[in-house]
């Protein structure tokens, strides 16, 4: 089973593939460092361009970007208290106070080392867990896949935090978009208005580019952020001198890695949640919790290790079952599909070099992060925050349009993308979360198709949905996710009022 993993290694080490990962990591750090631009956005803008590339080159770029962006987000988080990516919010808690104390350089070094460790742990998790899980996927028939889709949608709506009703509305919009196109069973047209271009449904990449890339770019253009507040003197020491001071974080690294990996595997939750959980747990375990929030380097370590530890592991359900747990995984799946790689157990059998090569690329990306994001590079990346925003914004818009056009070579898709961009802009302003839209589009289609297939297999008997243990476990998990948070809250309230009374 793991032999294929070794076989794939030489392919990854070829110059072009290695170069792709390197470029990806650098690009990822850049994108992550620019507030508003996220890994999802960068990869979705990139996917259409990878069409003509070798699959491993394309995937290497994506793996690199993902890893790089998760660290890059820490740079403005530390220096400006602006999280570069949503996943870096927890990094601001202690990173910014550190920068104010003149320890910004050290904070970034802690961030890069922790990110790298999280990424490495996650890559190992993907390598070790995905192959055996891919054998189990034969257990997942239509009924089970239906439940996974339902579970994932519930967890993104109820666990994302924020307003549940808004999450639900976002998810419903995504599910509605998934209905467009031909009916999965009978092939009737639905909401296509006679356009053949809509018959295959709406391509996830088009939706993603519009929804994720346009609103932040418009934001970038309408509010020229003051960027000169960054402290010029980062107080950077060479990394080999600071490294011994970080060794005491090993417990936090271990805990954060495990949390990140677990959150990554769970469909629905993403990097930001992993970072928050890791931060909270680390603070709870700390002997000096009072120093947290005032520039405790361990806090940066906790947040950064976890938001990188969910990168590769988020691909475990995506590669084995074809069900992406996060929006980044969703775009990556889109990238795989563009190269004719159908996720699922067959992927491991028919394209072992690519799948396992992809896993290696995650590992190398994480290791490279340590070198590329090292002390000298960190200083130059920090300068990025001074790039003229209008220039940046217009370049990205041009890339988006070219990219989307090149997927199928038609303007129709570009208009569609701009339309979604407008919707995304409004949603963004009204504080509707965007991830549920993306997952609603993918999971809604999964849920519908598989529900109808299982009902056909059961010849109309709804009992088939609860017929075996896998389904029953998934139903139980779904119920836990939906009612768990409110029950927990009630429990805490009771205890509080009990203590008062």
């Amino acid at each position: 089973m793991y032999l294929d993993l070794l076989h794939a290694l030489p392919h990854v080490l070829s110059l072009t593939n290695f170069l792709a990962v390197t470029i990806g990591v650098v690009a990822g750090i850049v994108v992550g460092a620019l507030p508003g631009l996220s890994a999802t956005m960068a990869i979705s803008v990139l996917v259409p361009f990878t069409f003509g590339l070798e699959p491993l080159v394309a995937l290497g770029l994506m793996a690199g970007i993902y890893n790089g962006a998760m660290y890059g987000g820490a740079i403005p988080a530390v220096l400006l208290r602006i999280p570069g990516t949503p996943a870096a919010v927890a990094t601001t808690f202690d990173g910014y106070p550190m920068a104010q104390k003149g320890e910004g350089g050290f904070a970034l070094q802690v961030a890069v080392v922790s990110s790298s460790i999280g990424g490495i742990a996650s890559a190992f998790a993907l390598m070790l867990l995905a192959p055996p899980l891919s054998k189990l996927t034969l257990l997942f028939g239509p009924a089970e896949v239906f439940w996974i889709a339902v579970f994932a949608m519930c967890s993104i709506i109820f666990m994302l935090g924020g307003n549940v009703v808004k999450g639900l509305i976002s998810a419903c919009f995504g599910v509605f978009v998934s209905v467009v196109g031909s009916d999965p069973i009978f092939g009737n047209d639905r909401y296509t208005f006679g356009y053949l271009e809509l018959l295959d449904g709406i391509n996830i990449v088009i939706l993603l580019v519009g929804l994720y890339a346009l609103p932040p770019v418009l934001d970038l253009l309408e509010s020229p952020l003051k960027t000169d507040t960054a402290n010029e003197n980062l107080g950077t020491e060479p990394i080999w001198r600071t490294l011994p001071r970080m060794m005491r974080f090993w417990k936090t690294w271990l805990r954060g890695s495990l949390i990140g990996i677990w959150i990554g595997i769970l469909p629905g939750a993403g990097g930001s949640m992993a970072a928050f959980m890791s931060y909270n747990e680390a603070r709870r375990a700390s002997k000096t919790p009072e120093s947290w929030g005032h520039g405790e380097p361990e806090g940066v370590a906790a947040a950064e290790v976890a938001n990188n530890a969910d990168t590769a592991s988020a691909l475990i359900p995506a590669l084995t079952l074809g069900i992406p747990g996060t929006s980044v995984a969703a775009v990556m799946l889109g990238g795989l599909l563009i190269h004719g790689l159908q996720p699922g157990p067959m992927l491991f059998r028919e394209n072992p070099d690519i799948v396992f090569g992809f896993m290696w690329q995650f590992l190398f990306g994480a290791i490279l992060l340590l070198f590329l994001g090292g002390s000298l590079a960190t200083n130059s990346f920090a300068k990025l925050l001074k790039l003229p925003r209008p220039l940046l914004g217009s370049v990205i818009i041009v890339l988006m349009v070219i990219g989307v056009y090149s997927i199928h070579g038609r303007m129709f898709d570009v208009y569609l993308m701009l339309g979604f961009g407008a919707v995304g802009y409004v949603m963004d302003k009204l504080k509707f979360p965007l991830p549920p839209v993306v997952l609603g589009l993918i999971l809604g289609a999964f849920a519908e198709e598989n529900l109808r297939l299982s009902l056909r297999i059961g010849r109309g008997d709804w009992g088939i949905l609860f017929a075996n243990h896998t389904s029953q476990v998934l139903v139980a998990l779904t119920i836990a996710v939906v009612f768990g948070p409110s029950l927990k809250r009630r429990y805490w309230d009771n205890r509080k009022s009990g203590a008062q009374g």
Partner: protein
Amino acid sequence: MFKYMQKTALAAAMVMAAGAAWAEFPDKPITIIVGFDAGGGTDVMARTAAPFIEKYLGAGASLVVKNVPGASGQIGVTEVANSVADGYTIGTYNLPGMMARTLDREAGYTADSFSYLANVVNDPNVIVTSKASGLDTMEKLIAAAKAEPGAITVGMSSLGGDDHFLLTKLGKVTETEYTIVPFKGSAPARTALMGGHVAMGILNISEVADFQDQINVLGVATAKRSEFAPDVPTFEEQGIALESGSMRGFVAPAGLPPEVEAKFIEAFDKLASDKDFAAAMAATSNPVELKVGADFKALNAETLDLAKTVWETSPWN
């Protein structure tokens, strides 16, 4: 100096343009419109066949593949039907899909919209069962279907395709009934079959040749055994008259100039006996069955008739 060069270039261009009007077909690149993404079965067929067609068209012919994916090839084939019939645009064509679409939706073309050049690939259907079902012969399968009509679930890639038509034929010939479970494509159907979530499946031989240890392949719907799985008997051998498959070939818009059409037909005829071509197609899991010109047209008409009967007795949407 520069002006002089400009003038020469202009003159040269004019001479070339004048020459073109007199030159024999083809004197410019021929576009092949492929209705699917690059890398799919139809695309691989077009790209594999292109250099051979170039060779037999002669006179430095060059073929350029243009992918116009979407709607199961509908967008591409509609573009072919509506393009200029000068031989410089041809396209890939899939049976029975392209004809079935003229029945179940308002297609932008009919059977008369094309000049039928050649069918190149015929990927025959196979009937397979899951190991868990215990139905490892056609006899057992048919007995089980008769014992309880509709009890056998059949996974397939879609409704209104070759697999659906084969099942309808099977039902008619053996007087049995089945429950159809149309997955989205053959890969998920095959996975469900391997996991035992459906009892039976109808796929194509190229999709199951490598999986014979994990599913029972009961028979293949061709006159002769397929070279992809020589140990799988035909249905003919088992006393059931069934022939069906997924076919891919090339068409041009209707009304090609006769000499251009003749040139294509001649090229495809030569393709039939090219050993290198056969080897290249076998390497990409494409079972070759060439039917050129009038034969292809007849095959198309026959498929349309079959699709019509299925549509009239049991419409799928």
